[in-house]
């Protein structure tokens, strides 16, 4: 079981056309992209993730939300083994991640976080194709991929030669997204990827992400503290409270949920929306 599993081997960029067929075949045989099976994470006396069972189907766009400290980020990081489970199993494409080499696992999964964390001493282009470079892809292929990815995240192609410090916050986030997508992963883990941006930039980036998600067919797991984001962007919203899943539903179904934690999360955006509606009305 250990070793490069064909399911996780990142596909080369030239496979863009066959990607869908590949994903379809996989979706038929392994319908679940990520499965949490009785997973707990415990740090000292604190239970951060408490016996979570959750299945994310391949191709889905799922938002993980909840109050601060609810365990959203930890749950996300279990999927690429940045956090190890203390109990239970985490399966990616049917394989227990604990049996995989974490480095190989992570190279097969796209990852972007709020801090972005571009490498300041690398150019934008070098940052974007970091994973293909780690995978040993030839230079010519990587150069081609940089151009494709700059197009995908709607940045001018001449940005490749820039240094990260020359970018605005929104541009850096786009580069971070491009870096996560560089090796055409089938699973994308996003931890508040647009958290620190102004609403307009944020909306434009989230739109772009939606377009890419639909066009490329990867599975997206998005952590956000903003319920409005979760409701408007995802096909399914998972609400965490004190390390437990307290709601798991389509956005429309979540509105009527009566769990106190869910109601507390909904109250504020709902109130905002009503007031704005009154103003418009």
């Amino acid at each position, binding site marked *: 079981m250990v070793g490069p599993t064909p399911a996780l081997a990142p596909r080369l960029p030239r496979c863009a056309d066959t990607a869908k067929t590949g994903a379809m075949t996989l979706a038929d045989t392994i319908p679940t992209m990520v499965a949490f099976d009785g997973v707990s994470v415990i740090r000292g006396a604190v239970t951060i993730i408490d016996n979570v069972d959750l299945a994310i189907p391949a191709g889905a766009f799922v938002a993980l939300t909840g109050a601060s400290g609810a365990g959203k980020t930890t749950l996300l990081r279990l999927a690429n083994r*940045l956090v190890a489970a203390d109990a239970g199993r985490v399966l990616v494409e049917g394989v227990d991640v604990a049996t995989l080499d974490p480095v*190989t696992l992570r190279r097969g999964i796209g990852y*972007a976080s709020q*801090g972005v*964390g571009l*490498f*300041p*001493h690398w150019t934008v282009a070098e940052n974007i194709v970091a994973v293909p470079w*780690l995978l040993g892809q030839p230079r010519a292929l990587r150069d081609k991929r940089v151009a494709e990815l700059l197009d995908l995240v709607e940045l001018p192609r001449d940005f490749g030669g820039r240094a990260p410090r020359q970018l605005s916050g929104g541009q850096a986030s786009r580069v971070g997204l491009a870096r996560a997508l560089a090796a055409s992963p089938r699973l994308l883990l996003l931890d508040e990827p647009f958290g620190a941006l102004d609403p307009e930039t944020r909306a434009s980036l989230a739109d772009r992400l939606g377009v890419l998600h639909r066009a490329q067919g990867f599975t997206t797991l998005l952590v956000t503290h903003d319920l409005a984001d979760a409701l408007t962007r995802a096909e399914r919203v998972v609400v965490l409270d004190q390390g437990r899943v307290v709601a798991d539903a389509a956005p429309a179904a979540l509105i009527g949920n009566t769990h106190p934690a869910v109601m507390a999360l909904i109250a504020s955006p709902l109130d905002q929306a009503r007031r704005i509606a009154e103003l418009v009305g």
Partner: protein
Amino acid sequence: MTEQLSRAVAMLPDRLAAHLGVSAAALGLAIAIAAPLVLVMAGRPRLRGWVLAIAAVIQTVPALALLALFYPLLLALGEVTQRLAGFGVPALGLLPSLLALSLYALLPLLRGGADGLASIPPETLDAADGIGMTRRQRLMQVELPMAAPIVMGGLRVAAVWTIGAATLATTVGQKSLGDLIFAGLQIEDWALVITGCLAAAALAIIVDIALWRSETGLGERRWGKALSGIAMLVVLVVGVVGWYWSARAPTSVGRPVIVGAKSFSEQYILAELIADRLRARGIPVTIRSGLGSAVAFRALAAGDIDVYVDYSGTLWSNALGRTTPAPRAEMLATLRRDLPQRHGVTVVAALGFENAYALAMRRRDAVRLGIESLADLAVSSAHLRLATDTEFQSRSEWTALQASYGLKFQRLTAYTPTLMVRALTGGDADVITAFSSDGRIAADDLLLLTDPRAALPAYDALLLVGPRRPDLARILQDLEGRIPVERMREANWQVDRSADKQTPGQAAAWLAARLN
């Protein structure tokens, strides 16, 4: 002046090469120690606190003391290895210098390394992990390049400190640019001092600029700039080594006799005198000068040097561990008997003069007040001001003087030796501590007060030969009683004075022509 300058420059290639070599080796050793420590410390704040605190404590020890401390340490270690494994450890020269200088360079290296790694934002490390870098890739591709400016800052500080502190390696017998500085300070040969300082400063500046250029060049990906920095280092090393090779003396077979000298004029002159006599017999000789007073005897006993001159009172306490002085003849007889037994050191000859502690006054003051002896001085000392050298007031001689004569002065002030004499001639002091063979006694018309109650121990100059070359005793024993104190004073004065200054070699030749 031009002659002094050419003498200074003639000393340079040898010392410059040794200086560069010992600095580079010490820095290399320090990096080899610091690099793994920095990596282990990363992410362990408690360990980091301890390691940096220890390095900081080491830093507070003056470099001079740190160097001197390694001498007895290595000596003891050498005895242990000799007993256990049958080989000794050299306690003088390169090894103690290397160890002390490396320790000294640790703090900036550790601090630069630790601060550099700590400066990397956590989200960058998270991204490196998240995209699937191995630990090694994260270190090599992200952490080290990002930490480089701070790490290199530490390295540059360490390099400059090491090159500066390496001048002090002279005191433990390592050849360095300090040879020029220490010798020059002692005999007030400013051409030597300035040449030594300038060479050390130039070395430090060139290395600093070269490291700065290569670091910023690499950081900014300006390869030309980075290469120019590396090229500067290469040119420096090739230049110094080339100069050394072209200037080096033809090599002789076997280890030469090493004549030791402590760091004052009389010792330099006597070392030259001994060296000349040995060379006249066709024996290859090198002089290792500037040895610390405590180091010299142990160096002789350990065979690191072969011959030097020390003084009976010093040997009485340092080598035999006696605390109460004895009459002169008894002291000499005991030394001649006990030194060979206890240390394998032979007293070959008493040279005929003393370099003892004494109190001195301006002659006209002494005549006016009717003072000839310490007993006379005690009568009027309450109105007089005493200037001493920096160590006298903590020495047993001072306690003995007070006890025997009841001396009480209006004021006590400690000076460096040169300033002490100036205080007397300039009227800021009435009485000073002096050394009986000091050339300034005659030159400044000072009167040495006699010691009728024999409170001050004798400091007869004794020529000592170490266990490695007992054969030297036969060659040098004819120096017994040949140097009267007036001649020694005159020779010292030729080197110490500022007008018509002679080199120790010239003074030694003058003295050799006037032996009794």
